C-alpha cells in the first residue's frame, strides 16, 4: 500500500509544512503579493514563476515547499504522477481573458493569459520545474474529495503505472484560495 509522507497547506497567507508553520505573510497583502513574498522567501531562481497566473503560482509554491525535503531521485521521472483537483477550475483567469474579448471594440486576447485558462497547466508547470513525467489528471469537484484523489493514485500504483505522486487540491475562487497537497509513495 501507499503512504503519505509529507503535506503542505497554504491558506490565509500562511504556509504549513507537515502541520508546522513554515512561512507567514502580512494578512493585509494582496493574494498576488503574498505569492510573490512566499516565493522570494524560498530563494529559488526560476524567473518563469513570475509569468504564471495566480492559481498556477499557488500550485507551484505548494509543490516547491513539498518537494524541498523529499528525496525522490531513486524513482524514474515517468513513475511520478501529479493528480490535482479544485472547484473553480481557472475562473479568475477565465474572467481575465473574457474581459479582453467580450467587447468588439476592445478585442485584445492574449495567448499568455489564454493558456492559463486550463486547470492542468498548473500540473504542466510543476512537471516542468521538477521533471516529473508520470500520469496526470485534473479533477473538478465542489469540495475537496481527498478520497477520490487517493483512490485514483492508489489504482495507478496498483497497476504499476506510477510509484509516487503529488496529489491534492489547489483552488482559487474570486474571493478565496486554498492549497492542500501531499506526497504519496508506494
Amino acid at each position, binding site marked *: 500500500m501507499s503512504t503519505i509522507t509529507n503535506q503542505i497547506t497554504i491558506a490565509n497567507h500562511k504556509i504549513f509544512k507537515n502541520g508546522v508553520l513554515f512561512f507567514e505573510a502580512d494578512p493585509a497583502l494582496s493574494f498576488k503579493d503574498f505569492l510573490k513574498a512566499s516565493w522570494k522567501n524560498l530563494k529559488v531562481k526560476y524567473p518563469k514563476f513570475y509569468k504564471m497566473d495566480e492559481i498556477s503560482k499557488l500550485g507551484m509554491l505548494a509543490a516547491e515547499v513539498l518537494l524541498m525535503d523529499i528525496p525522490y531521485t531513486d524513482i524514474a521521472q515517468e513513475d511520478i504522477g501529479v493528480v490535482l483537483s479544485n472547484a473553480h477550475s481557472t475562473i479568475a483567469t477565465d474572467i481575465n481573458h473574457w474581459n479582453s474579448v467580450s467587447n468588439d471594440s476592445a478585442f485584445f486576447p492574449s495567448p499568455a493569459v489564454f493558456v492559463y485558462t*486550463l486547470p492542468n497547466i498548473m500540473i*504542466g508547470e510543476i512537471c516542468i520545474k521538477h521533471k516529473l513525467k508520470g500520469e496526470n489528471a485534473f479533477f*473538478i*469537484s465542489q469540495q475537496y474529495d481527498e478520497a477520490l484523489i487517493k483512490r485514483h493514485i492508489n489504482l495507478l500504483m496498483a497497476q504499476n503505472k506510477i510509484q509516487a505522486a503529488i496529489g491534492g487540491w489547489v483552488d482559487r475562487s474570486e474571493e478565496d484560495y486554498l492549497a492542500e497537497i501531499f506526497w504519496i509513495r508506494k
Partner: protein
Amino acid sequence: MKQVYFTGDNIISSLGFSSQENFTSLLQAKTGIANFEIPGYYPEPFVASMIDRNKLHALIPDKRFTLLEKMMLLSVEDAVKSAGVDIKSDKTIFLFSTTKGNIDLLEEPISAQFETDRVYLWKMAEVITKHFGNPNRPMVISNACISGVLAINTAAMLLQNGDYEHAVVVGGDVVSRFVLSGFMSFHSLSPEPCKPFDAHRNGLSLGEAAGTVVLSVYPNKQEPRFIFAGGASANDANHISGPSRTGEGSYIAIEKAFKEAGIGSGEIDHISAHGTATPYNDDMESIAIKRHALSRVPVNSLKGFWGHTLGAAGIIETVALLHEMKNNTMIQTVGFSEPGTVEPLNVITKPVEKELNTCLKLASGFGGCNAALIVKKVTL
C-alpha cells in the same frame, strides 16, 4: 482484475446526432467544417465545425439546460439506449470530460438565465447526473485536450478494480467566443479547414461536439465485442504550450499502455492519432510513433471532419475507432494530401478495408500532457 467492455456510444456533432450518422459521413469523406460569419457572435469570419443548434433546441426545448448540457443529455440518452445499462443504479458512475464546460455563460445575456455557479464544471455534471437519476457523485476531468482519453482510462480503471459495474463517460465542449478568441491569439487557427499531417498544414480548426462511451464489466450481447486493453497518460515536462521535440510524453504514454495490454508495436493494426494539424503537434506525434517503430501502421486523424472538439475529441474519436474496428474499415484523413511530417507516417487517404483487432488511440494537449489507450476486439 475485471475485463472492461465498450457497450454503447454516441456522437453529437456537425455530422449528425448519432454514431451511425457520423460514421456514414466519415465513410463518405464528408467534412463538418464550414465558414461562418456571425456579426455580434464573433468580430470576424471564422472556420469551425458547429452542430445544428436549432435542431438540438427543437429536440430539447427545456430552457433549464445550457447548450452544452443539452448536447450531453442527448448523447448520454442515445448511448445508454444502445448499451442497455441501468443509469439509476449505484453501480453506475458518470464521468465527465470537458475543458471549458458552460464557459459561454460568461456572455451576456445567456448568463442571466442561469445561476452563477452553473459555469462551474462540477455543477454542470451534477445537473446532468441528477437529470438521469444517478445516485453517485459524478467525476469531472478537465485536463485540456487529453480529457476524453483520460476519462475513459479513469473509468476503465475503476471498473477493472470492481468499484463500479458500469461507467457512462461523456465529454463535450462548445465553440464560443471565449475559445475562438483564445486560439486565435495563439495564431493556431487555420484560415481554411485543417489539414492534419499535410505538408501545408496551417493550424487547427475548432469544433463543438459531445460524445459518450458506456463501459461495462459485462459484455454486450452482440459480436463483435471490444475491450479496453490498456491506457496511460504522461507529461513531456518540457513546455506548457508547445509539444516535446522528442515526443517524450506521448512515447511514455504509449509504452505504458502497451505494458498494461501486454502487447508490443507489432500487434497494432491501426492508430487513431490526435492530429490537430498544427505544425508542432503533428511532427511530435510522428516522432513518438517512429520511436515505437509504428511508422508503417496506418494512421488517421479525424480533425478534418469535426475540427478539434477539445473535451469531446478523445471520446468521439474513440467511438469512431470502435466503428472502424466493427466495420473493419479505416477512415481517411480528410484535409491530407501531401506528406509533411518530420518523420514519415502511413497516413490513410481513402477508406481501407482491413481486419482491425488491436488499435491505438492517441491524444496530446496544452500543459505538456499526453494520453494513449488501446482497444481490442475479442470473441467470447
